[in-house]
Protein backbone atom coordinates (compact mmCIF):
# COMPACT_ATOMS: atom_id res chain seq x y z
CA UNK A 1 0.00 0.00 0.00
CA UNK A 2 1.30 3.41 -0.90
CA UNK A 3 1.30 6.38 1.41
CA UNK A 4 -1.39 8.18 -0.59
CA UNK A 5 -3.75 5.20 -0.16
CA UNK A 6 -3.69 5.45 3.62
CA UNK A 7 -7.21 6.39 4.76
CA UNK A 8 -5.92 7.54 8.16
CA UNK A 9 -3.49 10.05 6.66
CA UNK A 10 -5.98 11.17 4.01
CA UNK A 11 -8.87 11.78 6.37
CA UNK A 12 -6.75 13.28 9.15
CA UNK A 13 -4.86 15.71 6.95
CA UNK A 14 -7.93 16.64 4.94
CA UNK A 15 -9.79 17.51 8.14
CA UNK A 16 -6.76 19.23 9.62
CA UNK A 17 -6.07 21.43 6.61
CA UNK A 18 -8.66 24.21 7.22
CA UNK A 19 -7.72 24.40 10.89
CA UNK A 20 -4.03 24.70 10.05
CA UNK A 21 -4.81 27.48 7.56
CA UNK A 22 -6.87 29.24 10.23
CA UNK A 23 -4.09 28.74 12.77
CA UNK A 24 -1.56 30.29 10.41
CA UNK A 25 -3.83 33.33 9.99
CA UNK A 26 -4.09 33.59 13.75
CA UNK A 27 -0.33 33.30 14.23
CA UNK A 28 0.45 36.22 11.93
CA UNK A 29 -2.58 38.31 12.91
CA UNK A 30 -1.75 38.22 16.61
CA UNK A 31 2.00 38.19 16.07
CA UNK A 32 2.32 41.60 17.68
CA UNK A 33 0.79 40.54 20.97
CA UNK A 34 1.34 36.79 21.19
CA UNK A 35 4.11 34.36 20.27
CA UNK A 36 4.32 34.07 16.52
CA UNK A 37 4.63 36.36 13.53
CA UNK A 38 4.76 36.37 9.77
CA UNK A 39 7.66 33.95 9.36
CA UNK A 40 6.19 31.32 11.65
CA UNK A 41 2.73 31.59 10.10
CA UNK A 42 4.17 31.31 6.60
CA UNK A 43 6.09 28.19 7.56
CA UNK A 44 2.94 26.65 9.09
CA UNK A 45 0.90 27.24 5.94
CA UNK A 46 3.69 26.20 3.59
CA UNK A 47 4.34 23.03 5.55
CA UNK A 48 0.74 21.77 5.47
CA UNK A 49 0.58 22.40 1.72
CA UNK A 50 3.87 20.56 1.21
CA UNK A 51 2.73 17.60 3.34
CA UNK A 52 -0.53 17.31 1.41
CA UNK A 53 1.23 17.58 -1.94
CA UNK A 54 3.66 14.86 -0.90
CA UNK A 55 0.79 12.65 0.17
CA UNK A 56 -1.49 13.18 -2.81
CA UNK A 57 1.35 13.53 -5.33
CA UNK A 58 -0.42 16.38 -7.02
CA UNK A 59 -0.42 20.15 -6.76
CA UNK A 60 -2.77 22.06 -4.52
CA UNK A 61 -3.32 25.18 -6.63
CA UNK A 62 -0.99 26.07 -9.46
CA UNK A 63 2.37 27.78 -9.16
CA UNK A 64 0.76 31.09 -10.11
CA UNK A 65 -1.21 31.19 -6.87
CA UNK A 66 1.90 30.89 -4.69
CA UNK A 67 3.86 33.19 -6.96
CA UNK A 68 1.09 35.76 -6.50
CA UNK A 69 1.36 35.34 -2.72
CA UNK A 70 5.10 35.81 -2.87
CA UNK A 71 4.96 38.80 -5.16
CA UNK A 72 2.09 40.32 -3.15
CA UNK A 73 4.09 40.11 0.07
CA UNK A 74 7.16 41.49 -1.62
CA UNK A 75 5.15 44.32 -3.17
CA UNK A 76 3.76 45.28 0.26
CA UNK A 77 7.26 45.33 1.75
CA UNK A 78 8.67 47.40 -1.11
CA UNK A 79 5.68 49.77 -0.98
CA UNK A 80 6.16 50.38 2.75
CA UNK A 81 9.91 50.73 2.26
CA UNK A 82 9.45 53.33 -0.47
CA UNK A 83 6.69 55.18 1.38
CA UNK A 84 8.73 55.24 4.59
CA UNK A 85 11.77 56.46 2.71
CA UNK A 86 9.78 59.24 1.07
CA UNK A 87 8.10 60.26 4.33
CA UNK A 88 10.95 60.04 6.83
CA UNK A 89 14.13 59.28 4.92
CA UNK A 90 14.28 55.79 6.49
CA UNK A 91 13.04 52.75 4.55
CA UNK A 92 10.07 51.11 6.28
CA UNK A 93 9.93 53.85 8.89
CA UNK A 94 7.31 56.41 9.76
CA UNK A 95 4.12 54.38 10.10
CA UNK A 96 4.47 52.98 13.60
CA UNK A 97 2.03 55.54 14.94
CA UNK A 98 -0.76 53.85 12.99
CA UNK A 99 -2.19 52.17 16.06
CA UNK A 100 -5.56 50.72 16.84
CA UNK A 101 -7.25 48.65 19.50
CA UNK A 102 -7.45 45.00 20.47
CA UNK A 103 -4.97 42.19 20.19
CA UNK A 104 -5.05 42.04 16.42
CA UNK A 105 -4.79 45.68 15.37
CA UNK A 106 -3.01 47.21 18.33
CA UNK A 107 -0.48 48.35 15.76
CA UNK A 108 -1.89 48.25 12.24
CA UNK A 109 1.49 48.81 10.58
CA UNK A 110 3.03 45.84 12.39
CA UNK A 111 0.02 43.75 11.29
CA UNK A 112 0.63 44.73 7.66
CA UNK A 113 4.34 43.91 7.97
CA UNK A 114 3.47 40.52 9.43
CA UNK A 115 0.99 39.96 6.60
CA UNK A 116 3.63 40.79 4.00
CA UNK A 117 6.18 38.45 5.54
CA UNK A 118 3.54 35.73 5.91
CA UNK A 119 2.52 35.88 2.23
CA UNK A 120 6.08 35.91 1.05
CA UNK A 121 7.33 33.07 3.23
CA UNK A 122 4.31 30.80 2.60
CA UNK A 123 4.54 31.27 -1.17
CA UNK A 124 8.32 30.82 -1.22
CA UNK A 125 8.28 27.62 0.81
CA UNK A 126 5.79 25.91 -1.50
CA UNK A 127 7.61 27.09 -4.63
CA UNK A 128 10.98 25.98 -3.27
CA UNK A 129 9.57 22.57 -2.41
CA UNK A 130 8.13 22.15 -5.89
CA UNK A 131 11.39 23.18 -7.51
CA UNK A 132 13.34 20.65 -5.46
CA UNK A 133 10.78 17.92 -6.10
CA UNK A 134 10.74 18.56 -9.84
CA UNK A 135 14.49 18.39 -9.91
CA UNK A 136 14.54 15.06 -8.09
CA UNK A 137 11.92 13.60 -10.40
CA UNK A 138 13.95 14.61 -13.42
CA UNK A 139 17.03 12.92 -12.02
CA UNK A 140 15.22 9.64 -11.31
Amino acid sequence: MQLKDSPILNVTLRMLFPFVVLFSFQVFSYGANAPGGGFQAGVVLGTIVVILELLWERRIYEDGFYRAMEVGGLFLLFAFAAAGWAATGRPLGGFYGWQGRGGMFSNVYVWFLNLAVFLKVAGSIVLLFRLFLGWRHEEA
Partner: protein
Amino acid sequence: MKRPEREPPPFRSRALAAAAALLVLAVAGFARFGPLSVTVRFHEEVGEFADLARSLNIRNLVTAVYLGPRVLDTFLEALVVVLAVSGMAFVRERS
Protein backbone atom coordinates in the same frame (compact mmCIF):
# COMPACT_ATOMS: atom_id res chain seq x y z
CA MET B 1 22.17 -19.59 -3.51
CA LYS B 2 24.27 -16.49 -3.60
CA ARG B 3 23.20 -13.75 -1.25
CA PRO B 4 22.93 -10.31 -2.80
CA GLU B 5 25.74 -8.01 -1.79
CA ARG B 6 24.77 -5.34 0.65
CA GLU B 7 25.46 -1.79 -0.30
CA PRO B 8 27.88 -0.06 2.04
CA PRO B 9 26.15 2.55 4.20
CA PRO B 10 26.67 6.14 3.06
CA PHE B 11 28.33 6.94 6.40
CA ARG B 12 31.03 5.32 8.49
CA SER B 13 29.04 3.34 11.04
CA ARG B 14 31.93 2.95 13.51
CA ALA B 15 32.70 6.64 13.41
CA LEU B 16 29.00 7.41 13.91
CA ALA B 17 28.77 5.01 16.86
CA ALA B 18 31.90 6.53 18.39
CA ALA B 19 30.49 10.03 17.95
CA ALA B 20 27.18 9.00 19.52
CA ALA B 21 28.99 7.38 22.47
CA LEU B 22 31.07 10.51 22.91
CA LEU B 23 27.94 12.64 22.90
CA VAL B 24 26.25 10.44 25.51
CA LEU B 25 29.37 10.58 27.69
CA ALA B 26 29.56 14.34 27.35
CA VAL B 27 25.90 14.76 28.34
CA ALA B 28 26.30 12.39 31.28
CA GLY B 29 29.47 14.19 32.33
CA PHE B 30 27.78 17.56 32.12
CA ALA B 31 24.85 16.26 34.18
CA ARG B 32 27.25 14.89 36.82
CA PHE B 33 29.95 17.54 36.97
CA GLY B 34 28.33 20.56 35.33
CA PRO B 35 27.05 23.63 37.15
CA LEU B 36 24.06 22.97 39.39
CA SER B 37 22.16 26.05 38.34
CA VAL B 38 22.26 28.67 35.66
CA THR B 39 23.40 32.11 36.66
CA VAL B 40 20.61 34.56 36.06
CA ARG B 41 21.79 37.97 35.03
CA PHE B 42 19.53 40.95 34.57
CA HIS B 43 20.13 42.86 31.37
CA GLU B 44 19.36 46.54 31.63
CA GLU B 45 18.43 46.77 27.95
CA VAL B 46 15.31 44.69 28.57
CA GLY B 47 13.76 47.82 30.03
CA GLU B 48 14.48 49.67 26.79
CA PHE B 49 12.83 46.92 24.76
CA ALA B 50 9.82 47.03 27.05
CA ASP B 51 9.59 50.79 26.54
CA LEU B 52 9.89 50.26 22.78
CA ALA B 53 7.08 47.68 22.79
CA ARG B 54 4.95 50.02 24.90
CA SER B 55 5.52 52.87 22.46
CA LEU B 56 4.49 50.58 19.57
CA ASN B 57 1.41 49.47 21.54
CA ILE B 58 2.37 45.80 21.23
CA ARG B 59 3.34 43.17 23.82
CA ASN B 60 5.58 40.75 21.93
CA LEU B 61 9.15 41.90 22.59
CA VAL B 62 10.53 39.79 19.73
CA THR B 63 8.16 41.41 17.26
CA ALA B 64 8.97 44.82 18.73
CA VAL B 65 12.64 44.25 17.86
CA TYR B 66 12.42 42.48 14.50
CA LEU B 67 9.67 44.68 13.11
CA GLY B 68 10.89 47.77 14.98
CA PRO B 69 14.53 48.86 14.95
CA ARG B 70 15.62 45.76 12.96
CA VAL B 71 12.88 45.95 10.34
CA LEU B 72 15.43 46.54 7.59
CA ASP B 73 17.11 43.25 8.51
CA THR B 74 13.75 41.53 8.29
CA PHE B 75 13.22 43.08 4.88
CA LEU B 76 16.59 41.85 3.63
CA GLU B 77 15.94 38.43 5.16
CA ALA B 78 12.73 38.25 3.16
CA LEU B 79 14.69 39.10 0.03
CA VAL B 80 17.08 36.22 0.73
CA VAL B 81 14.17 33.75 0.54
CA VAL B 82 13.03 35.28 -2.74
CA LEU B 83 16.59 35.03 -4.01
CA ALA B 84 16.64 31.33 -3.08
CA VAL B 85 13.46 30.68 -5.08
CA SER B 86 14.72 32.67 -8.05
CA GLY B 87 18.09 30.94 -7.91
CA MET B 88 16.51 27.51 -7.83
CA ALA B 89 14.22 28.36 -10.74
CA PHE B 90 17.17 29.70 -12.72
CA VAL B 91 19.37 26.66 -12.07
CA ARG B 92 16.53 24.30 -12.92
CA GLU B 93 15.86 26.06 -16.19
CA ARG B 94 19.51 25.84 -17.12
CA SER B 95 19.96 22.19 -16.20
